[in-house]
């Protein structure tokens, strides 16, 4: 009861023989050693296991590994550059106190990334809606929302400013 699957994981092509009953979370953590993705509740309530599959944030604890076949998957390990430079969302969580114990952070950041990739100008309400499935027991969420807002692309104030940015100076 195994199946051979191929998928793109953080930009790398992966082939793996998975057991049909493995969750994607099990494959990532227990088989591949990518322990950045956390297991919280295991029931799709807490969001600690959030990864991005084909641009959508999903709970990897409820997603069967066999269904990853042919998909593009992003985990927290894929965000920082190879030289260790953090992704802007990660850096923003550090700078804005969006992390306390850190357990929910990988899930929070993956949900935030899926949101900002799709909607780079997300407002506070949209951020709250997108992060509603990620539970944090430390921060009270305010610094997390502020971290996501600070990670957004800078707002272009006026057409004049936009033109300036477009010129080769």
């Amino acid at each position, binding site marked *: *009861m195994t*199946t051979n699957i191929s998928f793109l994981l953080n930009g790398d092509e992966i082939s793996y023989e998975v*057991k*049909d*009953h493995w*969750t994607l979370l099990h494959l990532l953590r227990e088989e591949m050693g990518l322990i950045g993705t956390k297991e919280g509740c*295991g*029931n*799709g*309530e807490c*969001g600690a296991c*959030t990864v991005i599959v084909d641009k*959508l*944030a*999903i*709970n990897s604890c*409820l*997603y*069967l590994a*066999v*269904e990853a076949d042919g998909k593009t998957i992003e985990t927290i390990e894929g965000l920082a550059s190879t030289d260790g430079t953090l992704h802007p969302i990660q850096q923003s969580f550090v700078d804005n106190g969006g992390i306390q114990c850190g357990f929910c952070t990988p899930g929070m950041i993956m*949900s935030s990334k899926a949101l900002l990739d799709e909607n780079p100008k997300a407002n506070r309400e949209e951020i*709250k*809606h*997108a992060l*509603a*499935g*990620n*539970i944090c027991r430390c921060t009270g969420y305010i610094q997390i929302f502020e971290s996501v807002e600070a990670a957004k692309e800078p707002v272009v104030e006026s057409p004049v400013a936009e033109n300036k940015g477009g010129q080769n100076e």
Partner: protein
Amino acid sequence: MKPFKYLSPATVEEAIAFHGRHTETAKYIGGGTDVIVKVKEGLMEPDYLISLKKIEELSELHKNEATGELSIGAMVTHATLEKSLMIQNEYPIIYDAVSNIGSLQVRNVGTIGGNLINAVPSADGAIPLIALDGVAILQSPDGERSVEVKDLFIEPYKTILKPGEILKKITIQPQAPHTGSAYIKFGRRAAMELPLIGIGVLLTVNDDLVTCTKARICLGVAAPTPMRAFDAESLLVGKKIDEKILIEAGKIAADESRVRDSVRGKAWHRKEMIRVQVKRMGLKCQQIIRNNS
């Protein structure tokens, strides 16, 4: 999790054939946000999981421009409905309901068909489809049949589907002009919560924009299955819609409900919320009708 074999048929016929071969040891799986939890908890112990994910026709969401019929494949995810501009503009009651199911992670994977088939009393997805007089298209080895969504449910966790039968899609006929619809999931907190009560209202008025020609008042968690408040609906038809008559309809709907005490809330509180929210959703329908006229 207990091991199982994962099967991935490409057509409905193939899925039904797989089920026929393995019968009670096989279960269909849609998005899996309910099935995987049940397998993990040992509430379901299938030897075979037959996935419906690869069956393309089940994921189709489209409106037939000629007939105006809306067709929602059973495997359409809540997030697909939530993001659809057509759903947002023309079927706000569906948007209201699906945009607050579970979390975004669940809505990205969970399907409208799974929400119906799971048949929990709190299924947010069922209420708008009942209010819109939706029809479920089912397929089994014996052929295809259609059933009104309101008649799908027998009791909590039990539908009329026969073993091996598949919910293919839900169809909704075009709404009359001057129709408004709204749903509220009423709970104790905004995020990640099952509703204490779910209230969906749909109103159609004639060209004077006040006289009601059709009313649907649908309630979730108000009975063992999603229900319609028929007496409250009857009260509204033929009357001029205003706050006073909607308050009356709310009272009748609360009386018709069969709410009970549970860990999440008390029956008396649920009744009070039905009274208040039927009125509010009715007023919201009226606002939508005015805005669109």
